[in-house]
């Protein structure tokens, strides 16, 4: 391994920022895959949530069945728990009519990591809901009673919201006041009789959603298209919709139990966080870096050692998945920061000693969501 390898790795190992259209296309493709007739999996998949960690002494004894059609399309398993336990609210709001188009918030769900809602849209008579394939709310901004921004589609919308208010934060200043990070949306239902669309939005954040008591949903246009994929040929329904919703106590009084780690049997692992929420359990750990390559190693030796390390990693992952019912791994931003910092501080040492971080870079500093 020489310096150029580290330069290449430093660039190629980082995740690229994928365009929103790519994520939407993947989600759309997955949603529209046909069910297989020979699907032998039972629709009732029970997830044992009882977890006894060798290092955490942590027990969460909830067993639940996933036998419904998920309204909120999200692969965070915590959402399943949330919905199945009735952790969803149908607010008593009326349709708000602007320019012959009516909109209201049908239902929503909010916890520390998930915020999803359904908006019902009654279309004007000149449009046929059954023919609409795609819809979106334009210039959408969701704020709460303390003027925190839960979601904001673009900077211009934020600047308009900011006018006349003494806000202590700016657009894109992610944190407790500006929580927004990403979203996906799609049409869940079309009702020809009432000429109504139900549009679902899923928002997500690496931060935490605040414990808001009131929410305001505002958007200026509703754009619709009869084609699923292409962005042009949209019908634009203009207006300014502003919908206020009271957040139920069960959402804003949600609690989180933080566990303290006393010991861990795996010397290579440092547990940095263990928390239990209404909707999920979350723990994070760091795995130690390991020196595996020596200067002068041939490519064959490098491959062999790399493969050994890879299998070691897989073994740990499999153990976590099977033993503790861990369902998914997500690399945390923190991991990347640490890696970059570490690399910066040790670049000379790395080049000189031939240390390799390769298999630890993609996802070895893990946040685990059950």
């Amino acid at each position, binding site marked *: 391994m020489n310096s150029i390898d580290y330069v290449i790795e430093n*660039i*190629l190992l980082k995740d690229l920022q994928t*365009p929103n259209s790519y994520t939407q*296309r993947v989600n759309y493709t997955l949603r529209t895959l046909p069910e*297989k007739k020979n699907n032998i*999996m039972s629709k009732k998949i029970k997830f044992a949530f009882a977890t006894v960690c060798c290092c955490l002494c942590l027990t969460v004894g909830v067993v639940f069945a996933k036998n419904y059609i998920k309204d909120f399309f999200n692969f965070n398993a915590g959402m399943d728990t949330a919905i199945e336990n009735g952790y969803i609210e149908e607010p008593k709001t009326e349709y708000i009519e602007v320019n012959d188009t009516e909109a209201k918030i049908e239902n929503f769900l909010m916890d520390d990591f998930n915020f999803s809602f359904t908006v019902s849209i009654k279309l004007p008579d000149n449009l046929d809901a059954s023919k609409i394939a795609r819809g979106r709310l334009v210039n959408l901004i969701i704020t709460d009673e303390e003027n925190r921004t839960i979601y904001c589609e673009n900077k211009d919308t934020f600047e308009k919201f900011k006018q006349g208010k003494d806000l202590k934060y700016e657009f894109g200043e992610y944190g407790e006041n500006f929580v927004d990070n990403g979203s996906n949306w799609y049409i869940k239902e079309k009702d020809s009789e009432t000429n109504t669309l139900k549009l679902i939005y899923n928002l997500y954040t690496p931060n935490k959603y605040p414990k808001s008591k009131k929410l305001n949903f505002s958007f200026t246009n509703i754009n619709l298209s009869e084609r699923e994929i292409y962005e042009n040929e949209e019908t634009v329904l203009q207006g300014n919709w502003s919908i206020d919703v009271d957040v139920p106590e069960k959402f804003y009084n949600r609690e989180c139990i933080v566990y303290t780690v006393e010991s861990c049997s795996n010397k290579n692992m440092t547990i940095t966080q263990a928390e239990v929420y209404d909707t999920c359990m979350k723990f994070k750990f760091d795995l130690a870096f390991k020196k595996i390559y020596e200067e002068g190693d041939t490519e064959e030796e490098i*491959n062999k050692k790399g493969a050994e390390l890879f299998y070691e990693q897989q073994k740990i992952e499999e153990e976590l998945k099977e033993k503790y019912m861990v369902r998914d791994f997500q690399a945390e931003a923190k991991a990347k920061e640490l890696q970059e910092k570490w690399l910066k501080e040790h670049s000379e040492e790395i080049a000189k000693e031939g240390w390799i971080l390769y298999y630890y870079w993609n996802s070895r500093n893990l946040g685990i969501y059950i």
Partner: protein
Amino acid sequence: MNELIKKAKKGDKSAFSEVILYYQNDLYKIARTRLSENADIEDAVQETIISAYESIHKLKNISKFKTWLVTILINQCNRIYNEQSKLKNAYCKYGLNENCDATTQDRINLQFDNLMSLLNSDERTILVLYYSEGYKTKEIARILDMNESTVRNKMSKARQKIENNLKEDYINE
């Protein structure tokens, strides 16, 4: 992951979706080494997902799932590339092409694009499969339908190109 792939192989759509979502960033990165337009990358990945879903029951060794998926993706990229000769030499370099996708404004994407712009299509894919996805040269040869020695030669040339072009920027600083 193996458990999910097993379920997907038995026809579980939800498990298949989870596996694809897990690999979606890798698929994007690999497709981007062969196609420059985001719309084409999206087409290639979409076709890959559909094709993989339809034929996953034929997959014999689930530990080779990712290699199998990447092979399908490369074939889809090649098909789109061949259909669209306009893509020849179209890989955009920051600052030189107004049609660069907006995501190249991102620093990491920019570094990636700049590095990739130094290489030809095969070299780009080989480097990403080797450095980013962790494949051995033997596996890359199988995925790209080349001799292993060809892969090694191309990788060596790619390294040399990068070294020549980036030495001043990265190494001597």
